[in-house]
């Protein structure tokens, strides 16, 4: 186990900079998830940590060593790839043993280590099979086993669940989380799936266009998003954004609805008011802020998402699962004032 530190890390291809000074400290044994849309630089960052991509500038420290110029094999890391990367011509046993090729352990010690890993991952009975005789989930477990067997300082996972079906992905998510609780290694996990990020991470790093947007616990990034991008990226369905104005007298939506909050501005400024669909409901007893016509229903069982066309844009709200309003019905939507998020209209930064 070891801490990991990225300091002013940049990456440029020719003259195009794709990572712009990443600073991050990952604590010993922490599970950190990088999340962001395609092309945000999360996989590039991971590959730079692994030593598979050169660093343009900055420093990567694993434990107490700056590893910028070390070969991947000398960095004390192990990586699990999106496409598993388990060798099809080798049995499961050989695939796992492959991770120990450069180890100085004796043969019996290696055998013991392989048996332990196989036991932890519940694949002792699969050791003599070839990868083509395994299911997707089993293959991914072999890939994890090959990484585990080396007992590295840092585990790197590059979108390891994206090739699995939804059910298996949920199962593997749980298994990886349990595995982390059991072995306690430092893990850096890359995904584009915010549900994976929320459910697995100790801390989430949200990236966009080569910049870190926010680093925080899942609760932090969900409840206190640093900007409009984070607010809309985290949470499904995405946070509603409605236009409004913040002035000395308080917050006013563009439909004229005034909202009492403790926010105010000395000069009038345009803002985006963020409301999570979960917080926007049909509740006559709460603050009613928007009204409009239901255009679409999305029944989810216990609740129904309704798309409502209001005078200041379409919003998604949550309705009762058993008696949702019909399409075409006019509804009035309410929200608790303390569940509103206000973002600057120009910069998108959260207004405190």
């Amino acid at each position, binding site marked *: 186990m070891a801490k990991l530190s990225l300091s002013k890390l940049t990456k440029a291809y020719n003259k195009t900079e794709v990572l712009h000074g990443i600073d991050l400290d990952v604590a010993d044994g922490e599970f950190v998830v990088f999340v962001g849309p395609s092309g945000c630089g999360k996989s590039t960052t991971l590959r730079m940590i*692994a*030593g*598979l991509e050169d660093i343009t500038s900055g420093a990567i420290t694993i434990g107490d060593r700056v590893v910028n110029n070390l*070969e*991947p*094999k000398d960095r004390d*890391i*192990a*990586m699990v*790839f*999106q*496409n*598993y*990367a388990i*060798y*099809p*011509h080798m049995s499961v046993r050989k695939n796992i043993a*492959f*991770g120990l*090729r*450069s180890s100085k352990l004796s043969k019996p010690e290696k055998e013991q280590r392989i048996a332990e890993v196989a036991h932890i991952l519940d694949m002792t009975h699969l050791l003599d099979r070839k990868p083509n005789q395994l299911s997707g989930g089993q293959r991914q477990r072999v890939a994890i086993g*090959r990484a585990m067997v*080396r007992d590295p300082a840092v585990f790197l996972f590059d979108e390891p669940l994206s090739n699995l079906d939804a059910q298996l992905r949920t199962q593997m998510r749980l298994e990886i989380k349990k595995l982390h609780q059991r072995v306690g290694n430092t893990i850096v996990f890359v995904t584009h799936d915010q549900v994976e990020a929320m459910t697995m991470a100790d801390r989430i790093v949200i990236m966009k266009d080569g910049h870190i947007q926010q680093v925080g616990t899942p609760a932090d990034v969900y409840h206190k998003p640093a900007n409009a991008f984070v607010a809309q990226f985290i949470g499904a369905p995405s946070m509603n954004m409605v236009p409004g104005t913040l002035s000395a007298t308080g917050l006013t939506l563009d439909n004229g609805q005034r909202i009492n909050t403790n926010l105010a501005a000395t000069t009038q400024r345009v803002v985006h008011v963020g409301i999570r669909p979960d917080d926007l409901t049909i509740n006559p007893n709460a603050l009613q802020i928007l009204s409009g016509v239901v255009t679409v229903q999305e029944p989810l069982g216990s609740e129904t998402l309704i798309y409502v066309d209001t005078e200041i844009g379409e919003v998604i709200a949550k309705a009762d699962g058993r008696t949702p309003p019909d399409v075409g019905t006019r509804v009035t939507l309410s929200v608790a004032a303390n569940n509103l998020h206000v973002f600057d209209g120009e910069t998108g930064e959260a207004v405190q």
Partner: protein
Amino acid sequence: MTATDLRPTAAVLDQSAASKPKNMGQILRWVLLFLGGIMMIMPIAYMISTSLKWPHEVYNVNLIPEEPTIENYTYVLEDGRFYLWFMNSIIIAVITTISNLLFDSLVGYTLCKFKFPGRQIVFIAILSTLMIPTEMLVIPWYLMSQSFGWLDSYWGIMFPGLMTAFGTFLMKQFFESVPDDFLEAARIDGLNELQIWWIVAMPLVKPALAALAIFVFLGNWTAFLWPLIVTNSVEMYTIPVGLSGFGDEADVAWELIMTGAAISTIPTLIVFLIFQRFIIRGVVMAGLKG
């Protein structure tokens, strides 16, 4: 209870009418395949037939010899020269094949998986050599052989074919199908680049290696022009060169040539029978990748 109506319904009739053109197409396909098969098999049948004929019957076009004999086989096999040529061909074909498998795949792998300045130029330069016919190359090859003292030696016969542009191209195309993740995983697991090529990448392109092995082996086994030019002594002849010399200036001993040819097809048949499933898969994959 009503009697069962055994007459075909309109739907069944429609179906049979619709399947007619399909059957016709199938018959046509079979006929074409049959004709193709006949065209392929006839030279082999004549080779075997001629090898079983007496000299006076050679120019008789009958496929079945009037007086079949194995005398030609006894003559060829008892002739020490044939055994020598056979061994020369084996040595040359095997060494050239192994050399191609190693060097073509090494260069193909490098061109495919490593980014370095001039990579594209090197690849185009290698590919461009495919456009130069062998007939144009034999003179420079001969001059080179002469200046290096390689005339009339195994090295002289083999050196132009130890690595081929075709093999390099084929292997490069196949390595394209090997995901980089495999190589990167191996890099993290502590393998050096040569080990990654040998332990990880090579086993993943086995079909291509098998296909290349067959191509190169057959090519060298049947090579005629260059071995004829570069060899002087009968002891250094390969089978095709040696067989061409059967007979004398006045008469060509076709029955002996055909007998030698029939015997010499045995190794190629064995190689082909063992690796044919790979060659088919290899050719199909090469097509997909290309």
